[in-house]
């Protein structure tokens, strides 16, 4: 990331405010436009069944992106979420026979602890977060390979994670409900406690936040803990859908998750953004993914699209006044 950050606090002129209000709605506009476009391309798309299916695919992505958003809001990045989720699916699949219903909270707890470890390494050793989590990604994948013996671990008795496959009121998948509740919980928790201002202060200007007495280090470690816990929860959702855990099962969710965060409009430089935006971003990314085959584009373009989206969205949301030198 950027190494040198101007210490002046961000000044938001009136014009800037107008612009932020507009960009705030951008993900929602994109979402509406996508749904409209897909409905025109395929009238069957706007039926309850296909919408439910799309929402179910989106659930793990929403949770992953929401957790990592906190880290991005603090000005860092967590590249290990997908690898951590993969490792968690392996743990969950291995632990369900012994722990039963306790396996789910255990996995989420372990994932949160791994998040704390990475956060502590980042804060205490003063290593840039993307290096810590890049190293973490490599380490976690290796652990997942060794623990699982590089193969898929089947879940024979899936009664303990089956509840995620139920439908609320017959229509809304339980996993989607859980994802939305998690996002709401994080958002409310930020709102009613001083955490909101701590997190954005850390993201906007870390030195100023430190001087003002914000517990910057704890906030950052906390953000990594939430990010880890969310990766664990996403893993539970994946296992409930696939009835197995695998050492690379969630690895292809990293790019969509990062794309969801930046498409939602959370600035990669920190401070500006919210978890709700990432929810919208995750829905946009999912719709793009399910939408490509509908429009008749081969799914190989998916990767190209993610790459382009990430670069363009980061360029659009970047707070250019804040960063003098981009590395």
């Amino acid at each position, binding site marked *: 990331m950027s190494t040198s950050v101007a210490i002046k606090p961000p000044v938001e002129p009136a014009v800037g405010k107008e612009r932020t209000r507009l960009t705030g709605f951008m993900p929602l506009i994109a979402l509406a436009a996508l749904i409209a476009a897909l409905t025109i391309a395929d009238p069957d798309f706007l039926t309850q069944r296909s919408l439910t299916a799309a929402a179910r695919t989106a659930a793990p992505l929403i949770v992953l992106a929401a957790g990592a958003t906190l880290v991005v809001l603090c000005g860092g990045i967590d590249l290990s979420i997908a690898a951590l989720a993969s490792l968690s699916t392996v743990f969950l699949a291995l632990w369900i026979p012994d722990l039963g219903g306790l396996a789910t909270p255990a996995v989420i707890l372990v994932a949160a602890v791994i998040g704390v470890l990475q956060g502590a390494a980042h804060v205490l050793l003063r290593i840039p*977060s993307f290096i810590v989590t890049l190293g973490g990604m490599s380490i976690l994948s290796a652990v997942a390979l060794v623990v699982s013996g590089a193969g898929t671990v089947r879940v024979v008795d899936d009664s303990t994670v089956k509840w995620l496959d139920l439908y609320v009121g017959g229509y809304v998948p339980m996993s989607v409900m859980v994802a939305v509740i998690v996002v709401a919980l994080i958002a409310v928790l930020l709102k009613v406690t001083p955490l909101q201002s701590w997190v954005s202060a850390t993201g906007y200007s870390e030195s100023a936040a430190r001087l003002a007495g914000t517990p910057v280090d704890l906030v950052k470690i906390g953000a990594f803990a939430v990010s880890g816990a969310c990766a664990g929860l996403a893993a539970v959702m994946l296992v409930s859908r696939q009835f197995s855990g695998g050492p690379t099962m969630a690895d292809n969710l990293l790019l969509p998750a990062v794309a969801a965060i930046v498409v939602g409009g959370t600035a990669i430089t920190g401070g500006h953004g919210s978890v709700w935006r990432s929810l919208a971003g995750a829905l946009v990314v999912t719709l793009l993914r399910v939408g490509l085959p509908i429009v008749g584009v081969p799914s190989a373009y998916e990767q190209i699209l993610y790459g382009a989206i990430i670069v363009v969205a980061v360029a659009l949301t970047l707070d250019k006044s804040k960063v003098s030198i981009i*590395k």
Partner: protein
Amino acid sequence: MFAALSPQFRSVDNVRSIVDAAAVLAVVTCGITFVLMMGSIDLSAAGVMGASALTVSLLVANNRNDNDFGFLGIVVAVLLGCAFGSLSGFALVLLKVPSFMATLGVSAIGLGVATLMFAGVQPNISDTMLESWAIERFLGFSYLAWIAAACILVGWLIQRYTRLGRYAFAIGGAEEVLTLSGVKVRPYKVAVFTFAGAFYGLGGVMVTSQLGAGLVQAGNGYDFSAITAAVVGGTLLTGGRGGVLHSAVGVLLVMVLTNGLVQVGVSPYWQGGVEGVIVVAAVAAAVIPQRRRNQVVK
């Protein structure tokens, strides 16, 4: 240490196999070193290598089409690497996207392009020259090892004697000073990324020669291994320190370590884990002396 633990490790054959196995990593690391010297980072190696591997395997004699461009195909693959590299560079200087994000995106684009070219059927190469690279030996080492040595030499000459190499160092050391003294750094940044892309392109060609087929996953893991090797060799991720020769030593160290661990009986699956620990530890060791000064770390 490994020599003491495993008699097999001491053999001449093993030394030879370490050097041969290090060839591709050495080329990729050579490219990434220049980017790291500037203080940027490059995560695009995997995608670029995948795209160039597919390109070269479809352009030389193969089982998918009638192309037989031979050497020209290799040149095209390397140029494709250049194109991807300059894409990262332009995203960095024009769009001001931080390099790790830009290169993450470019890597995805590269993998996507590779998947498109793969089209479900694996192209097996039958080009005798490219196949001979991995098999034929000259003075005991495979041609690939000699190509890697040549790349290191070229990299070192560029780093030492050209403006590009000198400025890459200076950008990493003190970009503000360089800008204030009237140097236009932006073209050099793009040039460095382009240059690095050429090395990844060549790396992809070399992997294709080893495997005898073009695979989308040709570059899997090389991006991170290359960063590990460069960091172990003493190139700082903050820039301004290190060099191609440092990295070459780092490559050998990493290869000796992974080869040694396998010989001692550690599961090869741990390789990525060991690399992760090394990177974090090496970066931490480099940062600790100035820990009190840098209060802001993103």
